[in-house]
């Protein structure tokens, strides 16, 4: 088993306390970094080739360099609005090791010269909010955060912001809108990146929680040690949340790009195989937005490029396993319903289309399906995401709408027989007889 970087304190139930964190090497990376120049810290992160862990997988060190020169102030925003169904790695990190995230924020701010950081935590994660709030207060009191950190010239403020409960706020521009006090709706692009125009119109770096969690280890152990782990284009480790029909669901840190789906689903130290010895029917490789994978994809490595090539995405690191008993129509409906509920309502195709999809699927499940429904589902999907291709083409501003297309695109061809069963069972004569019988 590979060395754990971000989950190394998960077995220690007191790791969220400052004393325990300090006793297990906490804030040593900060002390070390403060004796380096910011550029050295930045270079170290660049050399580690740390990819963003939020979904898009962009190198963090490079992203930090994207702010236009001479435009100040700029901000660090930590995206802790983890809401993708099946994803719960950031929540675990925030709950179990909040000081590590704070230390990560401090290192990022020091490297890029920022003095203001906003930590945005999803509204529903009450326990994580409490833990982080306590940790932040303790860190302020201990002089790790605030004015003149550890007696140096480096000053930084970290503001904890609790979300109001919208999935779309995981989209970085919507998160910035929400942070500004507006309705969480994605911004128009261009400008494409908050690094150019972000929070309060200023250059803003938005990083995922797990991305920042890697920083203390990288500074402690050096970029070379980090880059020694993982595959050629996926350095270090990565945390995956495995859920669904497995024996041992949970959060697992694995070597990035080397471990395969088969490893993480079947190995006893990870998810431990499909529940009750059943056969695997399908699995979602990277959160609810991803196109589903099947048996033939099990030996793909958990690596961005390979999965992109196979037609899906690694996304937020959520693997959802479905066994052979799973009703694929209901499974697709479950996910479509999530996106329909979470659509912000801005773009017509997403607002109207996702709900329409959900209602057609509900109707099919309720026994009122019609043979034409399958082509209608495909047509509606096509209006949200032309061609239903991967990566999706969009008629919307953000990818939420096209995400709702993924489950339908995944199952409508491969499991057409399951739809047909529902639709055949909804024989009109049967329904009418029932209705007439009820009336008589």
């Amino acid at each position, binding site marked *: 088993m590979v060395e754990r970087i971000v989950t190394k304190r998960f077995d220690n139930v007191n790791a969220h306390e400052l004393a325990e964190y300090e006793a297990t090497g906490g804030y040593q990376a900060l002390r070390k970094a403060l004796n380096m120049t910011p550029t050295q810290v930045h270079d170290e992160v660049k050399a580690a080739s740390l990819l963003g862990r939020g979904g898009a997988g962009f190198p963090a060190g490079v992203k930090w360099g994207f702010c236009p020169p001479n435009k100040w102030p700029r901000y660090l925003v930590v995206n802790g609005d983890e809401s993708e169904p099946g994803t719960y790695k950031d929540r675990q990190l925030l709950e179990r090791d909040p000081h590590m995230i704070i230390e990560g924020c401090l290192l990022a701010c020091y490297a890029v010269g920022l003095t203001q950081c906003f930590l945005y935590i999803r509204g529903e994660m009450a326990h994580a909010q409490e833990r982080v709030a306590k940790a932040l207060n303790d860190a302020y009191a201990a002089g790790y955060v605030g004015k003149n950190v550890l007696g140096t010239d480096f000053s930084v403020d970290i503001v904890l912001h609790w979300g109001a409960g919208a999935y779309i706020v995981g989209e970085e521009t919507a998160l910035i809108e929400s942070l500004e006090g507006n309705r969480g709706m994605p911004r128009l692009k261009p400008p494409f990146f908050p690094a150019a125009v972000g929070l309060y119109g200023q250059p803003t770096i938005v990083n995922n929680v797990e991305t920042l969690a890697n920083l203390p280890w990288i500074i402690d152990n050096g970029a070379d040690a980090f880059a020694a782990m993982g595959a050629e284009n996926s350095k270090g480790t990565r945390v995956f949340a495995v859920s669904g029909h497995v024996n041992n669901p949970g959060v697992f840190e694995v070597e990035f790009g080397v471990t395969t789906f088969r490893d993480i689903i079947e190995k006893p130290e990870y998810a431990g195989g499909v529940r009750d010895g059943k056969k695997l029917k399908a699995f979602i490789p990277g959160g609810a937005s991803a196109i589903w994978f099947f048996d033939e994809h099990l030996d793909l490595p958990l690596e961005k490029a390979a999965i992109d090539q196979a037609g899906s995405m690694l996304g937020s690191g959520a693997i959802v396993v479905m066994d052979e008993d799973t009703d694929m129509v209901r499974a697709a409906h479950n996910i479509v319903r999530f996106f329909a509920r979470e659509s*912000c309502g801005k773009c017509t195709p997403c*607002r109207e*289309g996702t709900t329409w999809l959900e209602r057609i699927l509900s109707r099919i499940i309720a026994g009122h399906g019609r043979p034409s429904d399958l082509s*209608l589902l495909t047509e509606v999907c096509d*209006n949200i995401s032309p061609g239903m291709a991967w990566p999706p*083409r969009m*008629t*919307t501003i953000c990818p939420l709408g096209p995400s709702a297309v993924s489950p339908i695109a995944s199952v409508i061809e491969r499991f057409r027989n399951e739809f047909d069963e529902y639709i055949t069972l909804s024989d009109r004569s049967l329904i009418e007889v029932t209705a007439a019988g009820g009336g008589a």
Partner: protein
Amino acid sequence: MSDAPKTDDTDVTVADAEVTEIEAPEVPAPPPGVPITVNGETVHATPGRMLIDACEDAGVYVPRFCYHPRMTPVGMCRMCLVEVDTGRGPALQPSCMLTVSDGMIVDTESEATKKAQDGVLELLLINHPLDCPVCDKGGECPLQDQTMSYGPGESRFIEEKRHFEKPIPINDNVFLDRERCILCDRCTRFAQEVAGDPLIHFIDRGNNTQVNTFPDDPFSSHFSGNTVQICPVGALTAKPYRFKARPWDLTEIESTYPNAMGDRITIQSSRNEVLRYLGVDSDAVNWGWLADRDRFSFESTMNEARLTAPLVRGGGLGAPDPAGAELVGSTWSAALAQVAAALDAARVNPSSIGVIGGARLTNEGQYAWAKLAKGVLGTDNVDAQLGDGIPADVLCALPRATIAEACAPGGTVVIIGTDPKEELGTLYLRLRHAAIHDDVKLIELTATETGLSRQASMSLRVRPGDLGVVADAIVRGDETAEIGLTSTADIAAAHAALNAADQVTVIVGSGSLAEHTALTVEAINAFASRSKVKFLSALRRGNVHGAIDLGLAPGLLPGRTSLEAGRSWFNDKWPTTPAETGHDTAAMLAAAATGKIDVLVLLGADPLIDFPDPELARAGLAGARMVVAVDLFANDSVYAFADVVLPAAACGEKSGSHTNLEGRVSAVRQKVTPPGTARADWMIAAEVAMHLGEDLGFESSTEVTDEIAAVSPLHAHATAAAIEDAADGVLLGNASTGGPARFVWQDLGAPSPATPLDRYSFRLCIDRTMYDHGTLTLSAPSLAPLAAPGSVRLHPSDANALGVVDGSAVRLSSKRASVEGPVVVDARVARGVAAIAHNHAGLDARALIELDAPVTDIRIETL
């Protein structure tokens, strides 16, 4: 080697020169902008222009719902998706969010585009109730129209549609049907971005998203009617028009609304009844917006209380009143004969004739009455303002700015004596836009915060009475101590801002009724002493700027010339000119009160309500031997004192022209016939002249317009034909084109300091609101309820010191009188100031005004 190219060069040069000489006139200049391809045609467009607009410039309409050229694009509806290739292959892009770039290839008719349009329309329609047959928007509905042009033939949606409670009122006049709403964000963006009243918003999310107000907090905006006009479906409807007509039954004409902004409007009517005004997007003026007071004011002209026949006190047709107490219906010939007889008797002594009002007339009506009074009867007792404005000779001496100059990017605007949001709605919208989007610095010097305070780069509180001294200190950079409420630091900051500015526009309102006009003049004087300054008058009454331009003021002749300077010029053109400078309204009323006025003509004027001193107004009206009123309604003054009443035509019932505050003359057009025998004002003047045996020399409104252009050098370009052709009107400007000399600004020197305050007193400020108890507001059923009851507004700390809260009854006492009324606690009012809006029910503060003092101080006692 070096020779050969040289020879070539020489040859080429010679050849080029020849070609240039011969063919240059035929070679078209390269069009501005960069080339883009729209549906296979190469056109030129300015880089940075929105693609949707560039396509429209090229004659290709891209369907849209959310995009509005006067608001920030949001890209919500996705209707304007087109296939665009910027070098990376064609992709669907919203043309309302994409700006033009060199070499862009756009296809608005490709298969992919058409499929996207089909898809978006089908999706928009799945939840849209198809209640078009009972929807007011049916027939003029962008959703309906674009579904016909671009949409699928039928829907495949068989589920139940989304349901909401059918129309809910979001304010007194606007209803919202959320089932019809397609969530385009136009109304909500308008409220937030344009009007600055973010009181409607999206709530809930996804498919349950709806537009609504905050609980218990209505969309109380002065501009709510605009949301109805820009709604692309029938979700927002306005009470005054609901279920009144179908669009295909309406006929329309473009005209100018008679407010001081000269907002461009479309008047729509059916069966000779005006049913709706719509704003016209005029770049120069109102950008398509209208204030609700103006938009819904057509109700007042349609009011059954309108005068439809001449009235004569005592005599008349049908049932004469022998006691002579009542106004009784009469005929035009009888009424005009009576007026003519009185004028004929009075004209031996022209100064016994007075004319008050005229600011609500068209230019033609104003000129006709000016010519009748000054050029035929020879009296100079003519004043369109009722002692509540700015002296006309002062305004005429100032360089006039245009709205565009005031709003030019990076400029500086000083606002004194007005709250544009309350007085000139569309000027407020233009200034707000300029401050937010064009980096225009607003510096306001007012006794209360205004609607623009949040956008102002400096919002200084000035105690009534101190304005002249403060303005002088700001312009000169006085380092003295604070002046009243205005701190030394504020004065220094404003001075620095003014010094840093190049061209400055000063917007001058009429100020508080309780302040002497001389104080406003002092402030104007202070700013006028600066170089590179222009002025924009914010007098609000209708066509008051036309009235001043056309000589409806003592000492003035048409064309902004003085009586003295213009006498010889007009002696050639008019039968006579006044022998001496006449009285303004105050002096006329005073003369009438002492029996020196034989005939007093009220041209759409109500001195009892509008003149600052109601007692003098009453005495003057009572003392005039004969009062002739030309009006739409029997207002208070008319009802109580007029001996002869002549019914006039209102907006939409007459044609001619209108002058706005920047001197823009635009066309006023007739849509419906006036009620009964009411007629245009110029016609009434001509008929009075005819009964006097005189001929004013014109028989149609266009003849009057052309005579104005012929006799007034200022109006030389504003011929009837030119006004008819100019969509944005004809700007008179300041340039003299010969003719008599014009007013020249004369520095009056430094103003005198204001009188000190007694520690316990409040300084009275009588300001104006959009909805007051004016005749036009009260006679429009949809507007009348919006006029709040009268109250005295006090700063919270003052209210606290007095021990009063909202609604507490207080007695206000000045040296002159006492009145009682309720308190409203308002943090926007400066400390030590008691602000009372003019002309609201239950509290007439004019009684308190000490007319000879520059300001009025009052005591406040709790009851």
